[in-house]
């Protein structure tokens, strides 16, 4: 990474770390938490879908399992950190259990398989835990937003940092080769199954940790809620809009999505769903690389125009 980029990242992180000191409105901080949550989710999905090419439509399952394990343990009085890690751990266990049969399916069948698994968990958890999970009175009395915000911030930094290191590693290179052409990758000595399974495990752990943080953050919700398919589809939409297979794409996508949704919900209410549906279709049809691709196209155009102008200038001179 160029030094200037590193500096930019450091400045952004410091600014984000200082925000709770200056922001007094809880609603603003809640919005930031939501953005950070979706950056983690989108980056996690991107490792499996963007880097490795395995489109998951059931990412809510990992998010939900993370939240479930953490919530149950933490409310019972377990210390916070082990409770959080248990959430990520449960998601990984589930990923390993489903990964071995699921990767017998390819392409669209894998996507349908994950969708089915996600729905099964959603319904099952709804039946097993039909109640609302509310924080105990004692926890409510001492509830503070800032520690939640910092937890999400730390997780976001770790997730994005991990995705960056992965993308530039040998394992990451192998994952992308599997995405591009599984048979050709195998012929070069890339163990496709192992790379897909690794991507699923990384992805599940990070989404599970997002769920764990959600369980620590949210005051009261149905146990079933984090398993809802909307978590899968929102996440996927963000990655597509931002640019899959890149580091910055899921970040930009998550920020754009959450802010635009906030704006639309306030102004057009339920119609916001239509806006995102149309946006998603437009991106898939005309801009499969998302905002990242759009930015590169614009930059190339500018560079070309500038070099053309320079050429013209030199010929007239």
């Amino acid at each position, binding site marked *: 990474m160029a030094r200037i980029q590193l500096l930019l990242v450091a400045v952004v992180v410091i600014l984000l770390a200082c925000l709770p000191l200056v922001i007094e409105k809880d609603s603003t901080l809640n919005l930031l938490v939501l953005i950070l949550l979706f950056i983690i989710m989108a980056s996690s999905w991107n490792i499996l879908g963007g880097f490795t090419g395995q489109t998951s439509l059931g990412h809510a399952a990992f998010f939900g399992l993370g939240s479930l394990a953490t919530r149950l343990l933490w409310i019972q009085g377990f210390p916070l950190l082990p409770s959080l890690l248990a959430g990520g751990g449960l998601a990984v266990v589930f990923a390993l259990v489903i990964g071995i049969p699921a990767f017998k399916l390819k392409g669209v069948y894998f996507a349908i398989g994950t969708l089915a698994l996600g729905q099964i968990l959603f319904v099952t958890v709804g039946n097993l835990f039909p109640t609302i999970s509310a924080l105990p009175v004692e926890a409510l009395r001492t509830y503070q937003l800032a520690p939640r915000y910092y937890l999400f911030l730390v997780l976001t930094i770790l997730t994005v940092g991990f995705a960056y290191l992965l993308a530039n590693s040998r394992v990451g*290179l192998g994952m992308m080769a599997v995405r591009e052409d599984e048979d*050709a990758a195998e012929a*070069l*000595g890339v163990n496709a199954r192992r790379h897909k399974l690794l991507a699923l495990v990384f992805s599940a752990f990070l989404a599970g940790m997002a769920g764990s943080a959600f369980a620590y953050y949210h005051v009261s919700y149905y146990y079933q809620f984090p398993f809802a398919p909307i978590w899968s589809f929102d996440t996927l939409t963000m990655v597509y809009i931002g640019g899959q297979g890149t580091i910055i794409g899921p970040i930009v996508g998550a920020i754009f999505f959450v802010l635009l949704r906030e704006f639309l919900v306030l102004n057009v209410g339920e119609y916001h769903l239509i806006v995102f549906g149309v946006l998603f279709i437009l991106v898939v049809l005309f801009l499969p690389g998302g905002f990242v691709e759009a930015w590169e196209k614009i930059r190339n155009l500018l560079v070309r125009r500038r070099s053309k102008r320079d050429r013209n200038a030199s010929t007239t001179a």
Partner: protein
Amino acid sequence: MLKLENINAYYGDLQALWGISLDVNEGELVALVGPNGAGKTTTLKVIAGLLAPAAGLVEFRGQDLLKKSVHQIVSLGISQVPEGGRIFPGMTVLENLELGAFVPEARKAKDQTLQSVYKSYPILEERSDQLAGTLSGGERQMLAIGRALMSKPRLLVLDEPSFGLAPILVDQMFVMITEINKQGVTVLLVEQNVRAALEVAHRSYVIENGEIVGEGTGVDLLSFESIRSAYLG
């Protein structure tokens, strides 16, 4: 160096190879020619470890390949260029080449190998940051071969390298293959372009309906009446 003995192979119930035997000696350039559907690619799949034969023996430098996984076979020094090159279009030229050196043995010498590949094919260095999908047909095939060379193969296996190339590029491709062989890499070449393959190869096998029906030096086979009438018109 490479030895196949009495290979029988099936796709489901369908027998594709009937007692295939062939040898490739160190330093040779051997061609395996024959019409579409004769079993050429199937033979290569057996060598690469992608298809387990029902009977027979595959040995490489004295080691039993049938007991090895695909990546172990790559590590032993057999590198395949699949039909059509099968480069990774959404990745850069450099990333494609790095993937060629994916197995640990090749990875150690990666930078050095990369320099020698760039020296042989300067166009790849020029385009190293470009997405492989933006290359022309000839450049893609060059990248596919460069990628295979990145694993520092002892044996380079090429499946239809002239496939889909313009006639002038086909000639260049065969020159490239001869040069690689002269630098000490043993080559097994599978081709439908029989005349060109027989001309560059030291020895050739003719395969038909899953059986080896002829063997000899290129010149011998070119004068074979059946080969002339069947493939050269």
